[in-house]
């Protein structure tokens, strides 16, 4: 093994606070020519749902963007008692269309920027193909491991909304909390240094996790949610008829999140589950089709 001149402690730079990591990723990807967007103002289960990824992956136009997206996964709530699971967390999302030949190098450059030294850590690309049944989308790629921990998802989109992606978009999804836990060497998400000036992740989000878990699992009004789901579906269909795919897609996002809440409340049986997912997918496909038609693209 290579000789190290300094002791590990001395070699370790001061770990990057959570917010600094986000700022660093934003500036890194801005330097690569990405438009830095802000989070979409709707609840969603993954950063991929953001129109800047899903809808921009369609059609021939080139596109580069990066943004933070809060994600809501109601069933993952643990009332703040589990050190690794959250019902609300952040993803950092990058989309490069067409995927550049040096995309892996660009990605590794971003890890370096947030302080992950590839000479010291074991970074691996491990097969993990991506599929979103609700978006009718799939792609091939990897989960990226850093010392055995999954820190990102890396995908070459092949289809979205049932349409072939031409050109192919490359998508990167960083699980920010996990990545920060790795960089800071912290075992409990709530212990993360948020701002480098005394505020922890727990200070910001612990109480929110407790209350939101209670809402998701105990208080969310299921009758209202079923009604919301139905309304969003109807609205989406109406907007598609009016040839307004962008607002229609927002209704699709809403119905997807409503479905996730209903799922967390345990009121959707295993058999019904597939039917609900199918209904969201039909809307998503309808939106993608409408965008194709509006732009006059050939499928």
């Amino acid at each position: 093994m290579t000789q190290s001149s300094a002791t590990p402690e001395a070699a370790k730079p001061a770990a990057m606070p959570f917010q600094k990591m986000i700022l660093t990723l934003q500036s890194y990807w801005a330097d690569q020519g990405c438009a830095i967007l802000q989070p979409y103002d709707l609840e969603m289960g993954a950063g991929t749902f953001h129109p800047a990824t899903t809808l921009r992956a369609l059609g021939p136009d080139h596109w580069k963007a990066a943004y933070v997206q809060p994600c809501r996964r109601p069933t993952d709530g643990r009332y703040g008692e589990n050190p690794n699971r959250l019902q609300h967390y952040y993803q950092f999302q990058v989309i490069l269309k067409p995927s550049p030949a040096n995309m892996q190098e660009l990605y590794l450059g971003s890890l370096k920027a947030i302080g992950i030294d590839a000479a010291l850590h074991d970074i691996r690309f491990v097969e993990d193909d991506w599929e979103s049944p609700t978006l009718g989308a799939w792609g091939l790629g990897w989960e990226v491991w850093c010392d055995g921990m999954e820190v990102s998802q890396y995908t070459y989109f092949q289809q979205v909304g049932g349409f072939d992606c031409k050109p192919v978009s490359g998508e990167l999804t960083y699980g920010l909390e996990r990545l920060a836990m790795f960089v800071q060497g912290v075992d409990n998400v709530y212990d993360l240094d948020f701002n480098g000036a005394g505020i922890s992740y727990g200070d910001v989000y612990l109480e929110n996790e407790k209350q939101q878990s209670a809402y998701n699992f105990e208080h969310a009004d299921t009758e209202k949610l079923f009604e919301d789901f139905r309304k969003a579906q109807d609205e989406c269909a109406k907007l598609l008829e009016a040839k307004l795919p962008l607002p229609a897609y927002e209704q699709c996002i809403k119905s997807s999140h409503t479905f996730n809440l209903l799922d967390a409340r345990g009121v959707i049986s295993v058999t019904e589950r597939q039917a609900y997912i199918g209904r969201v997918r039909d809307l998503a496909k309808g939106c993608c089709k409408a965008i194709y038609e509006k732009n006059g693209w050939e499928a």
Partner: protein
Amino acid sequence: MADLLIELFSEEIPARMQARASDDLKRMITTALKDAGLSFDGAYAYATPRRLALHVTGVPTTTPDVSEERRGPRADAPEKAIEGFLRGAGVAREDLVEREDKKGTFLYAVIEKRGQAAADVIAQALTDTVRNFPWAKSQRWGTGTLRWVRPLHSILCLFDGSVVDMEIDGIKAGDSTRGHRFMAPEEFSVTGFTDYKQKLLDHKIILDAGRRETLIRDTAQTLASAAGLELVEDAGLIAEVAGLVEWPVPMIGSFSADFLDVPEEVLILTMKKDQKYLVTRDPSTGRLANRFIFTANIEPSDDGSAVTGGNERVIAARLSDAQFFYEQDLKGKLEDNLPALKDIVFHKELGTVAERVERISRLAQAFAKNTETASEKEAARAAGLCKADLVSSMVYEFPEVQGVMGRYYAKAQGESDAVADAIRDHYAPLGPNDACPSAPVSVAVALAEKLDTLVGFFGIDQKPTGSKDPYALRRAALGVIRLITENKIRLSLKQVIGRADFLYMIDALQDVDLSIYDHLRGDAEASMPDQDGKIKIVDAYFEEVAEFDVSKDAGFKRYQKRSQGRNELVKGLLSFFGDRLKVQQRDKGVRHDLIDAVFAKGDDDLVRILNRVSALSAFLETEDGANLLAGYKRAANILKIEEKKDGTSYDKPVDIGRLAAIEAETLSGALAKAKEAAENALISEDFEGAMAALSSLRAPIDAFFDQVKVNDDDPEVRANQLALLSEIRTAVNTVADFGLIEG
């Protein structure tokens, strides 16, 4: 003679696809070489996470010259026809030669084709290979249309020391490649295979997957022994890990010993499946140790503590999740999970898992009662709890430990070993090589589970077709066969199929009327064979309640469909079992035609069937057996021909008094005796005895055919002798349908 070196350099190829891909590369390129007439000494394929490589030695630099002859029109053909031929063949008139054959004199063109440069053949072969590569899953990238498993970056193609001129979608073949992604990423060029392999090594790449595996295994063993532990061998996992690294660096890590309270199946699964870690055991106790071996892809610039620390944190987080789920599950009892099974649909036409458990429980109890070795109470208890772990937190997270967790939870709540083991083992056997349960309670529940599956899906026409078997029914049928034959369980398949089917029928009625439902379900095990009787009761019941409009009731319709299709179901399933039995026995060297011959007798007791097959097989290997079969075939063939000719059947009594030949008379007596002896032997399942009875027929049959002209000129004598042949057929078929035996 020259060497060919190809390397296809891409982004990370999934580990599980590498071996197959390097084989495909070798197969496709060497096939193309052979098709072009190029020989070679050897071909060697390699794969690493980022490259497929192929080395072919001893290839000629040009393809052989070939001389091709083409036959043209007759020499006296019109000038126009000859001109056309010349144009087509691309030769001049004076190059044609005349040859004479039986049909006349023809013109021949002799076309000399010069050999082609092998490099051109290779360029074409590689282009075709890349464009048509049989990846299980492939993708496009960027703006291109080319498909590869992940983006393809460069092609190295050297033949006879020079770069082969070729280009695919903008990727031009060259003589260079790259080293290790992190430790030696620079590009370098090579002159041939030896240089390639050495320079890769200098750039921290071990090309040969076998060498990477050996290195991982040896280092892991050394690390384990140094810690006083034993490495748990896992060739499959080591092969997978060798596909994840180009420069394997195994290291040892540990986790808190507190986690060892979690069942080791879960610990192993977490380490192996999620993290690709090798596990270790304490040789003094045989128990799993809290040290694991992981394989990094780099030599870290520190002493390895950063990588090790990172891996230890990951596994600690995962194990603490598992521990939480385990403790959570232990707070309740298995029974507490049962209501949740009502919400899990087994199949939309076959009801919920709760209903399935109820049926399995009744079937298992019946098996226990039937075999008299298992306690009915324990069988019912085990069956009732066998699916309860499906809704435990642990199985929700790790579906692979279904059954295994059920056993832990059963033990924890004080169930007997027989019950706990049956919960774990009721899925078994999961294939031809999986261990087959032998403990009586486990056998009863395992049999019940599989029969319920088979009868359920066959009853709704969801049979396997071709390669499609989404409900693993072939595996279930093989499981039934193994459970029955390996434990020598005597039962009638028809009866147990009928019973399982009846439970489904009754389930279909449960929404219709609950009182009759419970009553009939109880009956189902009270009188196992008499399904028809019970169906009469049900039908009579519905006739009585005339005001109930059964035609509109979905449950009743399901019942009716099953009730009307029950004979088909039994027939279909028996033949399915027959096919599976043949496949299973073929692997043991038993002839399929002998199974057919015995199966045709309508027996449905698998143990008895196999005993009869084995006696039959032994008999046919004796000289008597082989001759008897020949005599039988001869008799059957003659009968077939004559019966067809005469348009009648000779399956009628022989008039013994009118048998003219003495040999015929002797044979007739022997047949009567042999038939009776065989039948008696069969009743007492003395199959050797039955075969011995048949063997007594060999001499009289041979003598009959030697001395007697069957088709006698006297029509009455002839008819009588044909009836005698028919008796041979009948007598021999008592033991097995010899008509189905080949040879």
